[in-house]
């Protein structure tokens, strides 16, 4: 979170709507530990990361959907074993659980 505060501050000053995605749990091999965070603003600008670059693209899509749906936030899972919602995964074979929510606090 520390490394994305500067971008979030800038976006807040511009009155942009912002979603924050955080790693809350990992199973098996995962590139980033719980707490790794990225933020996406309503224009699709991104700061931070939650993996080694494997799932960020899908997180942006999910974050924008959350911003546009008035959702309070939801858990999203990415991993090789997950063949449902997303066609992206971690090449390392692990599973990463993210919580994505609007920065309404």
């Amino acid at each position, binding site marked *: *979170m*520390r490394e994305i*505060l500067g971008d*979030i*501050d800038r976006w*807040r000053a511009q009155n942009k709507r912002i979603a924050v995605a*955080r790693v*809350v*749990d990992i199973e098996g091999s995962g590139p980033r*530990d*719980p*707490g790794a965070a990225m933020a996406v603003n309503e224009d699709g600008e991104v700061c931070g990361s939650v993996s080694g670059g494997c799932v960020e693209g899908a997180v942006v899509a999910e974050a924008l959907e959350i911003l546009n749906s008035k*959702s*309070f*936030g*939801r*858990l999203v899972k990415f991993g090789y074993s997950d063949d449902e919602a997303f066609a992206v995964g971690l090449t390392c074979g692990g599973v990463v659980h993210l*919580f994505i*929510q*609007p*920065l*309404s*606090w």
Partner: protein
Amino acid sequence: MLYTALAERIRKNKPVVLLTVIDGPNTGATLLVAPDQTQIETLGTLGNAELDRVASRDAIGELEAGRTSVRNYGPAGQVTPEDLQDTPVVRVFVESFSPPPQMIIFGAVDFTAALARVAKVLGYYVVVCDAREVFATKRRFPMADEVLVTWPTPVLSARGSNLGPRDAICILTHDPKFDVPAIQGALATSVGYIGVMGSRKTHAKRLERLAEVGVTKPQDLDRLMSPIGLDIGSRTPEETAISICAEIIGKRVGRSVPSLAKSEGPIHR
């Protein structure tokens, strides 16, 4: 409001915990828990006063352990398996923001600048200390969080009790006047890493001087990583800084790494 308070505490290196309901009733609700000397301040709510109370207490424990995790509660803070039967589960992400680990570097030499730079990349709060006023300047070490012109003993007696397994002390002086008190002071702390620069010859002489002041216990001498760093053939100050930081990481996570302190033969081949 809550974000502003969180950002401010993170920037000021003050401990803080952010709790977020990630599943169950009130998903997305947040609570900020900020311990100060005398009391615990909270901001926001997870949706129930009793849940806030129980989760805040757990948050302080997680913070002290430096852990970030997901915990399960009942909607009114129930924690026992019996109480949790037949209630919806509230899953709470407890994210700890501990102050950064510290690295204290004794000796204001060229290696110090490189080491301070690499340590900053790794997120350390970096303190550079040397008794020589002309060398220990903020101008020479702009990347350091603090530059102190003083001797090791006062620094370590003032700050030693705050040092723990995540922190590091690197002694780069090569000067017995400075090395010996720095090592004595470092050994009196529970700091996770003590690295001391110098060739094998220098270290052998240093061990004699340490013996003269009564530092002889094998469990103490074992803590000294000297020659400092990994045996990766580093030559420049920057390469040496990488080898020192890699050794610190390896030691912290308990991996067996090719430390110079555990090998033989010349450092530079």
